[in-house]
C-alpha cells in the first residue's frame, strides 16, 4: 500500500459538495502539489488529510494505518497554515516547543531539538522574539520550523507563500524544495499558483469542482494535458484555444477547418485520429511560447495589439481574423509594431474533442 492513500473521499458542507469523490495515492518522500482555482476543494482535501475536517464518505490511510477517524495529533502530520497561525503570546522558541511539550518530551531534549531546527531555518537569533516582532518571511520560517521540529511523517502546506511578496516567495520556494530534499519526508502542498506547482512538485494533482482532473509530473501535465482545463491551467501565460472542425482524417494527422486559421484551414499531427471523423467539432490549443513567425506555412494571423517587454522575452497580444485574443510569448525583442500583421506558425498544437478531452 502506498504511504498516503485517499479513497473515494467526499466532503459536503450542507448541500454543497466541496470534494466529490477523490482517490489518490502518494509514495514515501514524494512532493505532491494540489493545484486548482479557488473553490476547487484543494484546501478542504488537505484539511481532511490533517484530520481538521471530518469526512462525509471515503477513507484516508497514512503509512498503512486507516486514520479516517483518528484525531489530528495522532496522525503525526504537521501543517503550515496560509496565515501561519503562530501563537501570538508565545516566543518563537515557545511556539516551536509547544508540540513537543504536548508529547511530554524532556526539557533538555526540547531545547536541543528547537535549537537544531532553528539553525536549519536560520532563525536562531529570533528565538526570544514574539511573532508580532517578526517580518512576514520570518514568520513563515517559524511556521515551517514549528512544523518540522516534531519530525512528522507527513507535511501539509496550505498556500504557505501567498502572503509573501514576489521576491521572498521565490526564495522560500527554493528553500522548501531544499528542505524536502534534505528531510526526505512526504509533503503535500496546496497552491493556486501553477508556477509553485510546476517548480516544487514531483507530481501535481489538478483539481476542479471537487474532482481530480489529472495527476502527473509537471512535464506530463504540461506536455500531455488530459483536457482543456488542465491545458489552460498549467503553463503561463495560458494556452490559446481555438474552435474548429475536422475537415479530413488521414494516417499522419487531420486537416482542420476553422475561421481562426489562415485561409480557414490547417493541418496538424495527431497521435491517434481513429475516433475522429470529418465534421467533428474540436478545440485546438497552442501555447504562447510555441508560436513563431512563419510566412511559409502560417496557422494563424494576428494583428498586434499590446506589447509587453519582459526583458528577455516579449509578450505580444493580438487578435486574429475570427476575433480570438491570441498571446504570443516571443524570445528577445522582435521588431514588431502595434497594428502590424503577424503570420504565426506553431511547433506544437494540442487537440481536444468537443467535451474538452485531449485527443
Amino acid at each position, binding site marked *: 500500500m502506498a504511504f498516503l492513500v485517499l479513497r473515494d473521499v467526499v466532503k459536503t458542507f450542507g448541500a454543497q459538495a466541496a470534494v466529490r469523490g477523490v482517490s489518490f495515492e502518494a509514495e514515501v518522500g514524494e512532493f505532491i502539489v494540489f493545484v486548482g482555482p479557488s473553490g476547487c476543494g484543494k484546501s478542504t482535501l488537505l484539511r481532511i488529510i490533517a484530520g481538521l475536517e471530518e469526512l462525509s464518505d471515503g477513507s484516508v490511510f497514512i503509512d498503512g494505518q486507516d486514520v479516517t477517524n483518528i484525531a489530528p495529533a495522532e496522525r503525526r502530520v504537521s501543517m503550515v497554515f496560509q496565515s501561519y497561525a503562530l501563537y501570538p503570546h508565545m516566543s518563537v522558541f515557545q511556539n516551536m516547543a509547544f*508540540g513537543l511539550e504536548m508529547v511530554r518530551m524532556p526539557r533538555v531534549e526540547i531545547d536541543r531539538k528547537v535549537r537544531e531546527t532553528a539553525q536549519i531555518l536560520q532563525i536562531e537569533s529570533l528565538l526570544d522574539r514574539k511573532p508580532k516582532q517578526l517580518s512576514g518571511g520570518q514568520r513563515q520560517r517559524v511556521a515551517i520550523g514549528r512544523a518540522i521540529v516534531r519530525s512528522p511523517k507527513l507535511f501539509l502546506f496550505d498556500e504557505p507563500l501567498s502572503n509573501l511578496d514576489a521576491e521572498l516567495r521565490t526564495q522560500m520556494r527554493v528553500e522548501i524544495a531544499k528542505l524536502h530534499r534534505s528531510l526526505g519526508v512526504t509533503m503535500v502542498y496546496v497552491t493556486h499558483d501553477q508556477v509553485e506547482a510546476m517548480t516544487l512538485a514531483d507530481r501535481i494533482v489538478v483539481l476542479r469542482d471537487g474532482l481530480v482532473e489529472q495527476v502527473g509530473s509537471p512535464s506530463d501535465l504540461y506536455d500531455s494535458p488530459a483536457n482543456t482545463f488542465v491545458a489552460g491551467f498549467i503553463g503561463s501565460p495560458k494556452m490559446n484555444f481555438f474552435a474548429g472542425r475536422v475537415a479530413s482524417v488521414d494516417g499522419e494527422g487531420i486537416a482542420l477547418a476553422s475561421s481562426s486559421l489562415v485561409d480557414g484551414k490547417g493541418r496538424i499531427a495527431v497521435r491517434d485520429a481513429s475516433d475522429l471523423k470529418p465534421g467533428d467539432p474540436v478545440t485546438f490549443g497552442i501555447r504562447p511560447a510555441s508560436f513563431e513567425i512563419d510566412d511559409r506555412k502560417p496557422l494563424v494571423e494576428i494583428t498586434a495589439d499590446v506589447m509587453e517587454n519582459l526583458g528577455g522575452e516579449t509578450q505580444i497580444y493580438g487578435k486574429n481574423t475570427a476575433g480570438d485574443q491570441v498571446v504570443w510569448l516571443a524570445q528577445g525583442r522582435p521588431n514588431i509594431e502595434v497594428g502590424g500583421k503577424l503570420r504565426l506558425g506553431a511547433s506544437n498544437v494540442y487537440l481536444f474533442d468537443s467535451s474538452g478531452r485531449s485527443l
Partner: protein
Amino acid sequence: MDRRIGRLLHIAGLVVVVVVTLFPFYWMVSSSFKAQTDLLANPPQWLFAPTLANYQAVYADGVLLGAVANSLIVAVFATILSVAFGAPAAYALARYSFRGKSDLWFWFISNRMITPVALALPIYIISRSVGLLDTYQVLVLVYITFNLPIVVWICTDQFKGIPHELEQAARLDGASQWTIFRRIYLPLGMPGVAVSAIFSFIFSWNELLYALVLINKTERKTAAVVATNYMSGYELPWGKIMATGTIIVLPVIVFSLIVSRHMVRGLTMGATK
C-alpha cells in the same frame, strides 16, 4: 489652524468628562478628611485642615472593618467562581456548534433580564429551608447567577475574535481541548476575562438587596449593608458616611487597577498574516 481648534475642543471635552466622573469621588474623599464645620460650610471650603477624626469614629464603631472583610470574602469567591465557570462555557459557545447552542446562549443572557427584586422572596424562602441564611455561601451562589451572564457574554465575544487557525494548529500539535483553552484561549482572551472579572467583582461588592435580605447576623453583614446603617436615626454624620464610603470604594479600585493590567489590546497581533 482648524486642526488646532479641533484638538483644543477634544481636550476640553476630555476635561469635562474627567471632571464630571471624578468630582463626586474627589468630594467624597476630601469630605472624609473634613471636620463637621468645614463640611457644612457655605460656600464650600476648598482648603481645610485635614483630620482623621471621621476614620477614628468609624473604627470605634467596630462594624465596618468586619463588614469589609465579609464583602471581600463574598466578592472574591463570587468573582473567581463566576470566571471559572463562565470562561469555559464561553469557550464552548464561541467555538463549538451543537444542538441548542443559540437557546443556551439566550438562556445565559436572559438570566440577567430578571429584575432581582422579583426573585428576592423565593430565594429567601429557599435559603431558609436549606439552612443557608446568614452564610457567605448563599450570597456567593446568588452573585454567581447574576455574574455568569456577564462573564459568558463578554468572554464569548472575546474568544470569537481569536483566529480559528490557532486552535487547529494546537490540535495538530497534540493539545487537548483543555490545554487549548488554558494555553491559547485564556491568555489571548485575557482582556475580556479581566473586564468580566472586574464587572463581577464590582457587582458582588456593591450588591445591596440580597445582602440585606439574606443576612441578618451583624457579624456577617457586608459593607454595602453597613453603609446604609447611617441612614436611620435623626442625625446625618456626613463625615463618617464619607469615610465609610471611601473605605468601601478602596478595594474595588485596587482590584480594578491590578486586573486592568491585562486589558491590553492587540494581543493576537502577529498570529496571522
